[in-house]
Each structure stands twice: as C-alpha cells, then as structure tokens.
C-alpha cells in the first residue's frame, strides 16, 4: 500500500464533476489516478439496497489496486489506452452549480458546527441531474434514469472476488448472443483496460442505445476479441430499485408511494393473471411532496391494477420510469386500486 498516496473524501461539496464521474448512489467508491489527473480505473459497485457490499470484495479490490500499480509503471506510454476512461464534459463543474443545490452548501464541512447538515451526499448529485429535466418539464432520458448499468443488465454476472471474470452468462442475453462464456476474463472494453466491475460499468454507462462494444477477453490463456451488441432500450433492463435516488423518483411519479409486486400466490388470491398490473402499496409517504398520494386518498395495501388506462404487468421501476418519461408535473393520472371495500378510482398527482 506504500505504493499509493491515499486520500479519503467524505463529502460531495465542491467535488470536481469533470474528474470524479462515478455511480453517485454508492456509499463507497474508489479512483486510481495519476497526479496529472489521468484516471487508471474505478472501483465500487452495488446492486442491492440492503447489502451494499455484495458486488465488492477485498480480493477484488486488491486485484484492482495491483493492476492500477501496473498501469502507473507503464505511464505515460499507455496514456492513449486510458483516454476512454477519463471523465466526459459536464454541464456543471461543481454540484453547487446545479439549480436545485445552489446556495445550500459551502465547499467545506462545518466540523465545529452542524457537520452533518453541512455535508452534501454524492447521491444528491444524481438527484440534481434528474431534477434538471423534471423541473424543465422534459422527459428524463434513459442515460440519466438508468445510470451505471451493472454487467448483469447485459447478461454478464461477474465474480466480485476477481477484477472482471465472468462467473455466469445468462442464456439468451446480449452477452450470450455476443459469444461470452463463463470463465472469460475481461481484459478491455472499447480498448480501455479493465480493473474492476466498475470499469465495465463505466463503459456501459457511456454506451449508446443500440451499441456495439469491442471487448477482449482471456479464454483458456488465449486472447479473444468479442463484440458486445446491445439493442435499443437495453438500459431499461437495469434495476434501479436499490438506489437511494429512486426515493425522489417516487416523489415525482408516485406521490411518495413505495410499491411492490404481488407474489404469484397473492395474484391468484386476487384473481389477477400474471400478465396484469398488480402493485401493492407497501408504504405511503407522510410528509411534504412525499405525502401527495396520501392526500389523494391512497392507502397502504391498496393494489394498483390500472394506471392511466393501462393494466399491463409492470414492476415499480417500469411504472416510475414510464411516468417520469411521459407525464409532467401538474398532471393527474387516473388509477384504479383494489382494497377490501372493492375497486376504488383515484387520481395520482405528478410532481
């Protein structure tokens, strides 16, 4: 570890957004970089709300650190290979420049006073990105709604104990159709040396819809070139339910409701087929804009069966995404719910 200068940052206040581009919903993220600001790689991934470490391990982190040291030894002769790993141009250089965050935070924490309140969380940057669109009454684009797709979005399950070794390929997925196999060690994506799952996510994060990503894997000791072909709308397979920023999506599109799909048994009891909408209200927000659904008459355990005339099966993610991309603040959406008394017609306010 003597090989690194270690810096720990516990605030998003005054964070350079042109340099530090990572999944802002994480509570732990690491960068390996040169003193000239060239990024060697990233570390830190998450796909579960409760278990923040499922996609990370000491072994994987150590492997990424060792590879970063190797890249540093070869630097700057390898600078061209690292070009794709560098931050992209951003509309704002600092979080405080976002309209929804302007004037609320100082550049440094107030350790002598209200230190907690003085700290801007990283996820607030992601919240602010989305609010830019919502407050302008524009659909939130897929790239902002589904950031930092995990490799499993394209059918690749990576081993968290390794840098980027394929543990499993989902049958019929984009990765499967592109020729990936379990045991493949991903060496590069779009010529970028891969140090971690987060590096794969970075490449996916910046990919279009559709996209073809040139990858190189090590299979049985031999290098093999594969093209990962991603279709239109591939990002929408990404699970955003674990993200803390989904809380604000619920404010925007569900009036503060937290929704959960019925189990097959519950569907059967409610006489709903597996093709029909069946989202149970798990939680009703109680305060401010998160209580908009409560004020509109929604109650815990209501089952949403029709939203805006559509009764096709959807997950909470899919419903939230559809509404923030098609319905603007101020609109009211007709919703039919089942509750003990029978069917009830309500109006869900968009914010």
């Amino acid at each position, binding site marked *: 570890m003597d090989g690194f200068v270690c810096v720990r940052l*516990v605030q998003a206040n005054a964070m350079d957004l042109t340099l530090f581009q990572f999944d802002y919903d994480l509570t732990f993220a690491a960068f390996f970089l040169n003193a000239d600001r060239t990024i060697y790689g990233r570390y830190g991934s998450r796909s579960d709300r409760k278990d923040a470490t499922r996609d*990370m391990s000491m072994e994987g982190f150590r492997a990424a650190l060792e590879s970063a040291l190797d890249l540093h030894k070869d630097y700057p002769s390898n600078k061209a290979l690292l070009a794709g790993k560098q931050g992209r141009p951003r509309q704002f250089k600092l979080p405080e420049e976002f309209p929804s965050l302007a004037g609320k935070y100082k550049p440094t924490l107030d350790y002598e006073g209200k230190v907690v309140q003085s700290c801007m969380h*990283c996820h607030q940057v992601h919240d602010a990105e989305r609010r830019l669109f919502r407050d302008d009454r524009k659909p939130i684009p897929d790239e902002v709604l589904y950031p930092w797709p995990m490799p499993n979005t394209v059918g690749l399950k990576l081993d968290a104990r390794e840098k980027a070794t394929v543990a499993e390929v989902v049958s019929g997925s984009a990765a499967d159709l592109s020729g990936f196999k379990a045991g493949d060690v991903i060496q590069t994506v779009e010529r970028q040396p891969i140090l971690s799952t987060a590096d794969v996510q970075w490449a996916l994060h910046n990919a279009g819809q559709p996209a073809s990503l040139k990858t190189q894997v090590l299979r049985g000791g031999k290098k093999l070139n594969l093209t990962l072909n991603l279709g239109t709308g591939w990002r929408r397979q990404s699970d955003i339910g674990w993200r803390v920023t989904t809380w604000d999506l619920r404010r925007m599109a569900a009036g503060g409701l937290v929704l959960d799909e019925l189990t097959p048994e519950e569907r059967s009891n409610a006489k709903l087929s597996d093709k029909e909408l069946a989202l149970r209200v798990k939680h009703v927000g109680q305060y401010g804009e998160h209580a908009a659904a409560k004020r509109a008459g929604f109650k815990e355990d209501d089952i949403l069966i029709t939203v805006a005339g559509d009764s096709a099966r959807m997950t909470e993610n899919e419903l939230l995404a559809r509404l923030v991309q098609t319905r603007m603040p101020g609109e009211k959406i007709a919703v039919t719910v089942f509750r003990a008394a029978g069917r009830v017609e309500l109006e869900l306010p968009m914010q």
Partner: protein
Amino acid sequence: MTRLISCLAASLVVAVVPATAAEDRRERVLNDRKEIEASGQWIYNDLPKGFAEAARTRKPMLVVFRCIP
C-alpha cells in the same frame, strides 16, 4: 502485506461495518475523521494535498469517496 491489508481494511471494511445504534451520525462523522487520520496512511478530505503529495512522490493516488451514513 500487513500494511496492505490494514489499508484495505481502513478504506473498505470501515466503510461497510455498520455503526452501533448508540452512535449518532454526528459522532460517526467526527469519529471517522479521528480514526482515519490516526491510522497515518490517509490524507483526509484534502484533495489538493493529495495531488501535491502524488506529484512530489510520483506515486499513483487512491481516492476513496465514503458517505458516512
């Protein structure tokens, strides 16, 4: 190797071990600074100092973002 494990623990394990219920968030924030600075291996919340040190020593940087819950 011991130093490596120690540093990894400071950066990753400390990040994920939940605080006891008795600690409130203010205490966790203050204790984090105290404990990490005491380890002697980390520059705390001072990125310019980190860049200067990396330029001086010609070492790569490990920059960890840690949100203290």
